[in-house]
């Protein structure tokens, strides 16, 4: 037996527990009874609910305590997650009562994702059912490894030990079969009778294990993430100039690791490097000189760099992965199925990027979870192993290495419609170029004039405007006119004709040289020009729309505008502006300058 001494108020921890299981297996009753038996109910609440039941002629149920909304009392099921609070001798609990009805799976997930541990309730009489299995799988996917199983309603099976053991054996075998962590313990309870919940019952003499409450008290808190590599997804860069404050603050929550003033840090995927100057906070005196996982903080940096929300800050030696392809385990909750070839939005950390379903490895039928289905789409409430492809490269981790940067949700239209965990990074065609850019940027020798200095003088950031399209489609004419227009507006622009790269830098290459090497050299030349702070206007026949992502991989720190000249207007590939080539110079230039302004290239914030 576990004996717990009362822990004084100041040292008490808060522990989040979710209650899950099949509909009608008695989750709310377990919670209601726990609240009542630990004295957590406000004075008069129990009596009020009893009176209400007498008035309406319904038999009293502990579940009514939780199902505070009229919708639920009428239907007798939990629609959404309800939170309630109680204290044991050792700690404070927040209990999340999640609905068991399949229709409300998204609510169950919303509740469970917040929990540190789970209690899964199985009806002794009904046994293991569809959502007992589905919830077990989802808990594993959500990363909740501490699970206690309550075999409830033991009174209905005469507190029979064999019955209890049979359910335990069946459920353990199921979890083992899907590779999930086996539960810590199984407890025979009768929530209605209060048997083995907060206090030991007399009806199960054959059970000498701990009560549910004793089991909960013994579950350890997750270890802090402070010793992992530093990860801070950038939430925003603040400058409250209007309020008379000139600090440029890089804000975000440190999800793992720690960082100190003086540390050299890098943002991925842009590879921009700087050093922490200060840790800013309101009403914190004296200011902190280091800060760790869990804090929503703000830093100022010694070198002003231009980075945007969605990038991940780390130390230079331990950066996150960067790719456009990731393998994931996910669940789909959307009303319409998740299908290949359609654009969705991936939200991972603070990044939000267009994403498509690239490939379905397998869909697991959640009701059985052992039939591997070959399907063309992921339907509502399906669990699947998939490969996702994002339009722009993102920084992330495998969920096993860092939870917060290793999981994501997918937005369909206006709604969060699915979520999952990253199980592997899939090598895409650009892996080598990306590695080259990283190695180069991490070891770059900076000059005495910074990018911010140049931006201030020339009133723009460095950027690439790349014209692509067939020979003689008008690329060069537009590029020339744009260079002149930018120059006349006081900016520092330079037209790079691909032909000029071929004449010199590529002079050693044979005519049948690999396209990838032409692209690589072109990209590295662009990178140097961008480093000089220019707006590079490029036009080349040798490098087409398909090569744009390769060029971008070599200049991860610079914005790029892709202008496709397509006389037939037949292409469906993504670009920033598609023109036919018959438009006037002035028309195209005004459209491009508007884009440069919108992307904050010529309107430096």
């Amino acid at each position, binding site marked *: 037996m576990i004996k717990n001494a009362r822990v004084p108020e100041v040292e008490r921890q808060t522990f989040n527990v979710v209650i899950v299981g099949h509909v009608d297996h008695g989750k709310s009753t377990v919670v209601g009874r726990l609240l009542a038996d630990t004295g957590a109910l406000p004075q008069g609440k129990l009596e009020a609910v009893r009176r209400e039941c007498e008035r309406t002629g319904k038999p009293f149920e502990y579940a009514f305590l939780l199902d505070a909304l009229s919708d639920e009392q009428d239907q007798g099921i939990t629609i959404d997650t309800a939170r309630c*609070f109680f204290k044991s001798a050792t700690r404070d609990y927040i209990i999340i009562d999640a609905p068991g009805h399949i229709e409300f799976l998204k609510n169950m997930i919303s509740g469970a994702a917040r929990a540190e541990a789970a209690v899964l309730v199985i009806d002794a009489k009904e046994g293991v059912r569809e959502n007992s299995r589905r919830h077990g799988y989802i808990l594993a996917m959500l990363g909740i490894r501490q699970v206690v199983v309550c075999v409830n309603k033991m009174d209905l099976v005469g507190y029979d030990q064999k019955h209890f053991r049979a359910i335990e054996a069946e459920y353990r075998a199921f979890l083992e079969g899907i590779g999930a962590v086996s539960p810590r313990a199984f407890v025979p309870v009768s929530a209605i009778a209060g048997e083995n919940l907060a206090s030991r019952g007399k009806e199960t003499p054959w059970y000498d294990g701990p009560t549910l409450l004793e089991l909960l008290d013994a579950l350890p808190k997750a270890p802090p993430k402070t010793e992992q590599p530093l990860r801070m997804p950038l939430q925003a860069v603040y400058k409250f100039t209007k309020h008379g404050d000139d600090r440029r603050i890089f804000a975000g929550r440190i999800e793992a690791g720690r960082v100190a003033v003086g540390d050299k840090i890098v943002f991925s995927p842009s590879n921009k490097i700087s050093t922490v100057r200060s840790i800013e906070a309101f009403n914190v005196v004296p200011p902190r000189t280091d800060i760790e996982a869990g804090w929503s903080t703000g830093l100022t940096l010694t070198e002003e760099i231009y980075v945007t929300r969605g990038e991940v800050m780390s130390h230079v030696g331990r950066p996150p992965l960067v790719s456009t392809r990731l393998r994931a385990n996910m669940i789909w909750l959307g009303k319409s199925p998740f299908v290949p070839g359609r654009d969705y*939005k991936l939200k991972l950390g603070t990044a939000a990027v267009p994403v498509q379903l690239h490939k379905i490895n397998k869909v697991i039928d959640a009701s059985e979870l052992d039939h591997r289905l070959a399907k063309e789409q992921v339907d509502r409430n399906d669990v699947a192993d998939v490969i996702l492809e994002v339009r722009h490269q993102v920084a992330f981790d495998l969920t096993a290495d860092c939870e917060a940067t290793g999981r994501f949700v997918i937005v369909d239209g206006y709604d969060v419609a699915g979520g999952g965990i990253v199980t592997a990074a899939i090598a895409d065609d650009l892996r080598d170029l990306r590695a080259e850019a990283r190695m180069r940027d991490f070891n770059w020798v900076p000059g005495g004039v910074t990018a911010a200095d140049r931006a201030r003088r020339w009133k723009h950031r460095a950027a690439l405007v790349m014209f692509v399209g067939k020979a003689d489609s008008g690329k060069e004419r537009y590029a020339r006119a744009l260079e002149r227009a930018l120059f006349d507006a006081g900016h520092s622009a330079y037209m790079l004709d691909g032909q000029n790269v071929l004449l010199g830098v590529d002079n050693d290459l044979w005519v049948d040289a690999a396209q990838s090497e032409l692209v690589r050299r072109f990209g590295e030349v662009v990178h140097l020009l961008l480093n000089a702070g220019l707006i590079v206007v490029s036009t080349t026949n040798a490098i087409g729309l398909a090569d744009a992502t390769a060029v971008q991989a070599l200049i991860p720190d610079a914005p790029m505008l892709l202008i496709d000249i397509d006389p037939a207007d037949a292409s469906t590939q993504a670009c920033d502006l598609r023109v036919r080539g018959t438009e006037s110079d002035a028309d195209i230039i005004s459209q491009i300058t508007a884009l440069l302004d919108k992307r904050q290239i010529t309107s430096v914030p």
Partner: protein
Amino acid sequence: MDHLEQLEQQSVFILREAFRHFERLCMLWSIGKDSTVMLWLARKAFFGHVPFPLVHVDTSYKLPEMIAYRDKLAMEYKLQMVVGQNVEALAAKDTFPDRLAANPKMTVEEQAIARTACCGKLKAEALGATLHGTGVRRRLNLETGQYEPDHDHQPYTGVIVGARADEEGSRSKERYFSPRDKNNVWDVGDQPPEFWNQFKTDFAPGTHVRIHPLLDWTELNIWEYIKRESIPTVSLYYDQGAGTRYRSLGCGPCQAPIKSTSKNVDDIIAELKSGKLKNIAERSGRLQDGKHGLEELRRDGYM
């Protein structure tokens, strides 16, 4: 990191997400302890600044101390203070105090109905109109300290609200980011999933999102945080010698003080932890909360 710090850091994260995703963002400030803590958390999130307007719905029945305190803090913190009011209902005397004056023999049940109706007019309706920009909006001029007609009539699409899950049953079902449809209605049965701190930040035109940074806080947490950060609060929360104080602030006619001799924050914390308030619901002094009263008001847009 202790529990209070964890709550603070999550609230700061939520506020920054809200600021990022909603161009038309405002924070509701009821002048009470919860939304004042929320205002403080905004200053935490934005390094001493509050980069969006604070909206207060003035029923005209608020206790005078509350209004004085509101304007003092607004000037001190340089807040963009916007005040709304249902001037039509007040002019038409369509309020509980007016109805009671006209019919002093109202039964307790009739009074309860009239109180809920009054909340509907002066709070829910006024709030809806203020947020949509169709109602009266007055804005504090920080130069003169006077309120002037607000020239901004655009609707707010993100509204930060200080609801706590422990206050009352229906609030325990809220999300951090909770959508409201075109008619301001909260569809409790069909809420979006919310996990891993990825919030509902995409929304159809005409709808808006309520943001709840204080969802995980309890009444005790609020007072402990007020103490830790030395946040100024309205004097009405403290016993001034008469042996009574307010536990929750509303309108004068519908708000009864409780018997308590707590004279400062420490007294209140002690009272909540071990004293007689431990097992009495916080809103018990609010006379409009009957069975389903608050839930219905909430569906209709009440906070």
